[in-house]
C-alpha cells in the first residue's frame, strides 16, 4: 500500500535540509497569585517543549500533529523566532539565525484564523504591499514594480484577476479568499519555508481542499517546504510527506506519512488514530483521561500513565514496565526512516497495531 501510494505522486522532496531544529526546550513560567506568593507557594514551570530535534528538507511537507497543549504551536513559534527557547537552536540552511529580518523573509507563517490575521482597515493591496515595505523591497529581482509583485502574489494564491482585489477590504471576502490573501502576503516575499498553524481548521469543509491544493501547488512549482501544524491526521494523510507526533513537549514518533499513519509504532499514535471518527467506530478503544498537564510531567516515559500497553499489563508481561515507569527515552530508528520513543516498540513489542 505504502509503495503504491508513493508511486502515485512524484514529490519534489530533496535530501537538502533547509531547516534544522536542535534540542529545543521552552519553559513557560508558572504564575501564582499574590496570596500564594505570601504563603511561600511556588508555581511549577510548564515545559511546553522539552527537547525536540526536527529537520525539514527542501520541498518537503512535514505535518506536526498532537493534542492541544502538546507544544506543537510553541515549536512553530520558536521556528518563527517569535519565542526565544531556553535551550537549543534553529539552523536555517545549516547556519544559526543571525539576522532575524532576513530570516523572516524566507520563513513565513500562515495562521489559523485569516480574519484575525488581516488588518480590517487595510485594502488587500495594502496588506500584500506592507510585507514588501517592511522588508524594504522596492523592486523585484528582475526589476518588477511593487504592483507587479503584488499582482503576481495574488494570482499565485489563486486570486485572479489580481487587480479586482486591490481595493477590497478583508470583510468583503469569504473565509477561503481571506486565507488566500494571507498566503499571498507570504508569497510576495518569495519564501523558502512556510509554517502553517492549522491553516484550514477555521475554514468550511468544502473550501479546505482548495487551500490545501494551493499549498501543494506552491510546493511543487516553487519547491517551498511546508511545516503544517495540525490536530487532524486525515489532513496529514492528504498532504504530508512525513508526520511527526508530539506528546507533552516531545516528538514521540516521526517518519514517512504512510509508515506513521498506517503502521504506527507508538501507543500514543495508535490512540490518536483510533479516535479518527469513522462509521460504527463507537466501540473501539478510546484513551481515558484528559490531555496531560505540562507542569507535571510524569517520570519515565511521559506517556506511561495513559499508555494502554502499561494499564492493560502488556508492558509488564513483556518485562518492560519498570523501564516505562522509570526510564525516560528519546527517539530510536525502528524501521528505515521511522523513529519512535517507546520502550516496548524498541524491544520489538507489539509493533503492528
Amino acid at each position: 500500500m505504502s509503495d503504491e501510494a508513493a508511486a502515485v505522486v512524484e514529490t519534489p522532496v530533496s535530501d537538502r535540509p533547509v531547516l534544522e531544529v536542535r534540542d529545543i526546550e521552552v519553559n513557560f513560567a508558572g504564575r501564582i497569585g499574590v496570596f500564594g506568593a505570601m504563603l511561600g507557594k511556588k508555581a511549577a514551570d510548564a515545559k511546553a517543549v522539552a527537547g525536540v530535534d526536527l529537520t525539514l528538507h527542501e520541498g518537503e511537507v512535514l505535518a506536526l500533529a498532537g493534542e492541544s497543549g502538546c507544544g506543537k504551536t510553541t515549536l512553530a513559534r520558536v521556528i518563527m523566532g517569535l519565542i526565544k527557547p531556553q535551550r537549543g537552536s534553529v539552523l536555517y540552511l545549516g547556519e544559526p539565525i543571525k539576522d532575524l529580518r532576513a530570516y523572516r523573509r524566507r520563513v513565513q507563517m500562515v495562521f489559523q484564523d485569516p480574519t484575525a490575521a488581516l488588518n480590517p482597515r487595510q485594502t488587500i493591496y495594502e496588506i500584500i504591499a506592507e510585507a514588501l515595505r517592511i522588508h524594504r523591497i522596492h523592486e523585484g529581482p528582475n526589476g518588477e514594480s511593487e504592483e507587479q509583485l503584488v499582482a503576481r502574489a495574488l494570482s499565485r494564491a489563486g486570486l485572479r484577476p489580481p487587480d479586482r482585489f486591490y481595493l477590497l477590504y478583508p470583510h468583503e471576502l469569504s473565509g477561503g479568499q481571506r486565507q488566500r490573501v494571507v498566503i499571498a502576503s507570504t508569497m510576495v516575499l518569495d519564501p523558502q519555508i512556510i509554517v502553517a498553524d492549522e491553516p484550514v481548521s477555521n475554514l468550511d469543509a468544502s473550501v479546505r481542499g482548495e487551500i490545501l491544493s494551493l499549498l501543494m501547488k506552491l510546493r511543487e512549482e516553487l519547491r517551498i517546504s511546508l511545516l503544517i501544524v495540525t490536530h487532524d491526521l486525515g489532513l496529514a494523510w492528504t498532504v504530508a510527506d512525513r508526520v511527526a507526533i508530539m506528546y507533552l513537549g516531545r516528538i514521540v514518533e516521526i517518519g514517512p506519512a504512510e509508515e506513521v499513519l498506517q503502521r504506527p509504532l507508538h501507543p500514543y499514535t495508535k490512540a490518536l488514530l483510533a479516535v479518527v471518527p469513522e462509521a460504527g467506530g463507537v466501540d473501539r478503544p478510546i484513551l481515558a483521561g484528559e490531555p496531560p498537564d505540562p507542569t507535571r510531567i510524569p517520570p519515565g516515559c511521559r506517556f506511561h500513565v495513559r499508555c494502554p500497553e502499561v494499564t492493560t499489563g502488556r508492558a509488564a508481561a513483556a518485562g518492560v514496565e519498570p523501564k516505562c515507569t522509570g526510564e525516560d527515552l528519546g527517539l530510536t530508528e525502528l524501521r528505515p526512516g521511522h523513529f519512535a520513543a517507546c520502550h516496548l516498540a524498541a524491544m520489538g513489542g507489539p509493533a503492528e497495531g
Partner: protein
Amino acid sequence: MSVLSVRDLSVTYQTTGGGVPAVRGVTFDIDRGEVLGLAGESGCGKSTIGAAILRLHAAATKIEGTILLDGENVLEMKPGRLRAARWSGASIVFQGALHALNPVKRVGDQIVEAITTHQLAGDREAKVRAGALLEQVGLPPRRIDDYPHELSGGQKQRIMIAMALACNPSLVIADEPTTALDVIVQAQVLRLMRGLERELGLAMLFITHDLSVLLEVSDRLAIMYAGKIVEEGPAEQVFHHSRHPYTAALAAAFPEIGDIRFRHRPSGLGGDPPDPQDIPPGCSFHPRCPKAFEDCSSVEPHLYPAGDGRRAACLLIEGALASAKDGAR
C-alpha cells in the same frame, strides 16, 4: 409517532437590509431512539433549525411551517407551555460549554436549578438527581460542588449533557457539542452521547459541520446547503455513496487514512457557499457543482427518491429532471 416532526420549515431573519431566508422549506422526522445528523457549512441554516425547534429566535424572526414535538406544534405554544417544553420536551447542548455555564455558581446547583425551575422535584430530591446525572455522564459525584473553572473542557461538556438530561426530555438537540474539544476527549464525549441515547431511548438531532463525527454517531444524515436539505438517508449510504455532488465534495474533505485516492491530492470545491440574500436560481449549488448542466441554472430540484431509503435534490437523479419540469408547469 415521531418525537419530532418538522414540516416545511422556513426561517427568515429580519435585518435592516431586508429579510434573510436562512432556512427555506425543510422537512424531516426523528423517531424515538434515533439520531439524525444535520450537516452543512457555516451559514447553511443548520443551527437556525436547532434554535427554531426551541423557539430561541428573536421575536421578529419569521418562522413558518410546523414543528411537532411529541405531537404538539411548538410554533403555536403559549409562553407558559413553551417554557415547560424547553428542557423537559426538548433540550439543547451548545458548542460553547465553556461559556454556557454560570462561572460563579457550582455546577451541581446549576443542574438542580434546571430541575426545580420545572418543578419536577424539591431541592433535596433534585440534588440527589443531580448526583445521579453526574454519574450517568461519567463524572465522579464529588464534582457536584465544583465551579466551572475547576473542570476541563470535556468535563464541562459532560455537565452540559447532564443538564440537558435533567428534565427527561424526549429530544436532545446537540449543536456542535464536541467541536471545541480535543480529538481524544471528543471521542469520549461522542461515545457517552451515543450510549445515553441508546440507554434512554432519546431522539437526538446532532448538528455539526464535521461529517466524520456524524458518520460515527448518526443513524441518518441530512445534508444542508443554502437553507435546504439536499440529501438525506442512512448515514453510511449518504457518506460513502452520496448521490448529491455537494455531499460527495463535503465527504471528500474528511479523507480516510490509508485511502490512496486522497494521498497528496486534497480535493475541494471552487467558490463559496452563496449569500442567503442572493441565492442562485435553479439548483442553488449549480455555480459550484462539478456536474452541473444547462437545466441546473433554471430548474429547481426537490428531494427525489435515490434508492436505499435515500432522497437527494439533484437533477441527475433518475427521473428528477422530468418530475421537476412537470412540477414547474
